[in-house]
């Protein structure tokens, strides 16, 4: 990851300076940072889909059950009473498992001594209980890819559209990148509505911390127009000149398109027409709106990257965003100890979360989807086991604990940013946002053997259709919708119109999809009214 001149020692040296600069920038209040951000109007609504990839089980978090509450405590994955926290005014719970000392078995331990990032579920509930809606849900597939897709399409209830596509269609027509997807496998797939407008389709982002580099046809590129020999054009006269030369070159290109035999002969080609239109409209806007700066996550000098030598800069807002998202939730470290790199590079979830916020805060995007993959991440193995939540196949308790901590930590940081970001219209971004913690399915509820000690033995669980869904938003009424049978750990549903628990109701993906669309004021044909999860 370093160029040939960048030894580890040099990197750390450079990194120190970069870190100092970043820290200085991060002390600027968000509102002031926003002044230098895009002055585009904010979208009316935001959908943030953070994927709890692999199967996040609700009875290991917000619907946890105490041993004393269950007649089958020995057989089920229930927890000591002291570890299951309740809170006044809400039925939501939190599961705070203790850390164990070195060499001593513990609930949280996996792959030796690893115990997760330590972010406490109770912290999240205490901060955001009024916004957290947990709804009972029975999925329809135990296959990861299929289930992931169904979680986002409501099992095809809206013409096969994903939530992101639907929301982007409503709120994204004038946006540069209305629908951005950085997710994995089934969460990355497009929906199947052939009539979806092109602007609402996924813009796939592979490498979030380098995405900015792909948002300009020339800036930041060595040897681009206007620059000195073997150099990138510098901000100022060189870059201005380069831009002007590029504009003229693009104009000449348009002339060539009209003049060439190829251009004339194939002018009926729709895909060619599309690229030409994109060049003249959205691609031009991406450059004009300076996404390469606004989404640039690197600081000057980080990893030996001399941004300035490439004619690039970091934005205040990006620095402030990193200041919130990047620190480890318990140690506060911003440098990954395994690699010695910034967390923004070492931890994909950090970069994704930063980019998700920046895209929305700059008014470029109305819907972002991101989340962990199944790829083992050696540098952050202490926070994320291989296969994310699906590591429950090996060690359910530890996997669920580590991953819920991770997902809720990222969500907390996102909400923090959103709450502090005014829209310029009298409200904050948070007031307009819905966060959907999409997951594949639940997990098996039983221990592998009656009386199995969860603190000592690894419980292996498979995929299970019975679970719940988590939607977090000020646009929805927080609470638990449905109920959990403490003797089976199965959830059962609720009346969508009243919100009252109804054991005879089976909630499906289309209920969750409908609730999210209702919160975002994005109705669709056949939508199920979910008035029971809203205030008033």
């Amino acid at each position, binding site marked *: 990851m370093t160029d040939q001149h960048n030894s580890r020692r040099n990197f750390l040296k450079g990194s120190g300076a970069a870190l100092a600069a970043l820290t200085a920038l991060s002390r600027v209040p968000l509102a002031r940072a926003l002044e230098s951000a895009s002055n585009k109007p904010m979208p009316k609504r935001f959908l943030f889909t953070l994927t709890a990839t692999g199967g996040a089980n609700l009875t290991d978090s917000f619907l946890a059950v105490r041993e004393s509450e269950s007649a089958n405590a020995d057989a089920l994955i229930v927890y000591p009473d002291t570890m299951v926290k309740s809170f006044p005014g809400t039925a939501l719970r939190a599961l705070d498992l203790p850390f164990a000392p070195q060499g001593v078995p513990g609930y949280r331990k996996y792959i030796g001594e690893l115990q997760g990032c330590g972010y406490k579920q109770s912290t999240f509930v205490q901060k955001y209980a009024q916004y957290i809606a947990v709804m009972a849900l029975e999925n*329809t*597939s*135990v*296959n990861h*890819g*299929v289930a992931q*897709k169904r979680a986002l399409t409501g099992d*095809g*209830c809206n*013409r096969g559209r994903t939530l992101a596509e639907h929301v982007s269609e409503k709120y994204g027509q004038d946006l540069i990148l209305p629908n951005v997807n950085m997710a994995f*496998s089934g969460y990355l797939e497009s929906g*199947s509505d*052939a*009539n979806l407008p092109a602007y609402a389709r996924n813009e796939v982002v592979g490498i979030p911390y380098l995405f900015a580099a792909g948002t300009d046809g020339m800036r930041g590129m060595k040897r681009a127009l206007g620059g000195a020999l073997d150099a990138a054009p510098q901000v100022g006269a060189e870059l201005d000149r380069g831009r002007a030369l590029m504009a003229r070159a693009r104009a000449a290109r348009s002339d060539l398109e009209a003049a060439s*035999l190829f251009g004339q*002969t194939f002018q*009926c080609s729709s895909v060619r027409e599309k690229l030409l239109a994109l060049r003249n409209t959205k691609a031009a806007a991406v450059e004009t709106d300076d996404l390469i700066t606004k989404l640039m996550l690197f600081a000057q000098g980080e990893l030996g990257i001399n941004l300035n030598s490439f004619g690039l800069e970091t934005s205040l807002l990006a620095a402030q965003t990193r200041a919130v998202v990047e620190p480890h939730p318990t140690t506060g470290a911003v440098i990954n100890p395994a690699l010695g790199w910034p967390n923004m590079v070492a931890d994909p979830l950090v970069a994704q979360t930063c980019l998700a916020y920046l895209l929305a805060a700059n008014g470029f995007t109305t819907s972002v989807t991101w989340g962990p*993959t*199944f*790829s*083992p991440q050696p540098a952050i193995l202490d926070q994320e086991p*291989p*296969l994310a939540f699906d590591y429950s*196949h090996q060690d359910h308790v530890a996997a669920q604990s580590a991953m819920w901590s991770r997902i809720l930590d990222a969500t907390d940081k996102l909400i923090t940013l959103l709450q502090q970001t005014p829209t310029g219209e009298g409200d904050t971004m948070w007031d307009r946002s819905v966060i959907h913690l999409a997951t594949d399915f639940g997990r098996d509820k039983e221990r592998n053997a009656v009386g199995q000690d969860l603190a000592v033995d690894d419980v*292996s669980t*498979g*995929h299970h*259709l019975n679970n719940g869904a988590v939607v977090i938003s000020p646009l929805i009424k927080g609470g638990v919708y449905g109920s959990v049978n403490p003797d089976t750990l199965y959830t059962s549903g609720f009346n969508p119109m009243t919100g009252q628990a109804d054991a005879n109701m089976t909630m499906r993906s*289309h209920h969750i999809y409908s609730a999210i669309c209702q919160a975002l004021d994005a109705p669709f*044909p*056949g939508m199920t009214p979910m008035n029971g999860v809203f205030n008033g």
Partner: protein
Amino acid sequence: MQILLCMLTVLVATTAVAKPIAPKIFCDTYPDSGLCAGTLVTCSLCHTSTSPSHTAWNDFGNAVLGARDWETHFANDLPTALSLIEQDDSDGDTLDNISEILLGSLPADELSIPTVPDSPQGDPNPGYNVGGYDFLFAYRRVSIVYCGQSPSLKELDAIEGSDAAYNRLHDKLDACLQSGHWRNVVLDRMADPAIKPINFGTNWEWDYRLFRFVMTEGRDMRDLVSADYHVREAQPGVLTKIEGSVPNHNGVPCNKNDPGTCAFDEMCNTPKESDDGFCAYAAGRQPLEAEHRAGMLTTQWFHFFNTMFSALPRQTAAQAYRSWLDFDIARQEGLMPVSNEPLDVDGKGVDQAECAQCHSTLDPLSYVFASYNGIEAGGASVYDPSRPIRKGLWEEGNAPQSLLLGQPVETLQDWGAVAMASDPFKRKLALLFYQHAIGHDPRPEDLVEFTALWQSLPNDGFSANALNHRLIDLNAFGAL
């Protein structure tokens, strides 16, 4: 009176709920339909939703519903109802329903219509053979699509105006089919949706090698679902068969500090406390014995990733159905319900109305897969005929009948045999290359030549090379 009739229609119509047998009935009624050539229609032909709690129909479906009063025998009534609305234009796109059905566009979708573009007018094009097949254009496309690079000016100069243009075009294809780009890049990417690797070991390299092997050198593509061998790559780009069992190592000693003694597809495998060991396959093992193999259906990765921990490998069967017959059950494609199914042998509740629509096809597809391990002791893909009994799926001697495309199958090899003899298999193979070469699915106006393409496979020994030679002759490839 009219209002009463309307109400009656609605009342009667609501009893005619979605039936997963409908796709097959439709294609039996219209065997010449472009929508059915080598495939089956899906429920979305008539439905916007097939959920029992809120079944909904599109314009064509509503027309079918309203065509007659539905009696109790859906299977008998549907063909009649369809015939009654043939002259209608349900989606208002000016083409009547029967024309759309035969041509292969969707009668409920106004945007799905064979396009007859206005003919070009004017002087002859000075550089392209507009209105006909353009050999230079096709040559350039062959070079880019198959060789991964545009032809040079020198090459094009040699072709232009040449009487041997056709031969040069096909010679170019031959050369490109030998190229590293085709063999090592394109074919790998073509296999991605079927293999679905993840960053969890590299056992899937066996699957990619098998795929590339079968797709090259004119080999019989039916080996994809029938091969009893595996393939190694001892040198980069050189694929060779491994017949019989795949050994843990090839007996070549190595030292981990000097792994150069090992072949390209090997690594130096050493015990914990030693630097010395033997060269072993870097992608791991293939424990399944040859007599139970069926090509890509029985690789270790395939069962590891798709079966995982499930007792009845439904996802495994669905992935095979999707990958080799182009029927994605998750999209209600390829529904051929078996009566009295699903039996719900593992008590997952798939016999509920909402689930049975698909599981009445999927579960019978899956039974023969149950004799192969998922992630369990012994290793994924190991054949164990007692596994279904051990997993509590059924009792000894009482296995439910597995069926594929309506035909009984007793083993996974049978499954592969039925698959490879079917039209959907041929169509899928052609589709793989068509999508790569043309860049999209066949359009309604191109269905005739696409159908002829896959129907030619038996004549060409199911050779991928031969198929591609025919493909580049299509109008879809080279006509302007």
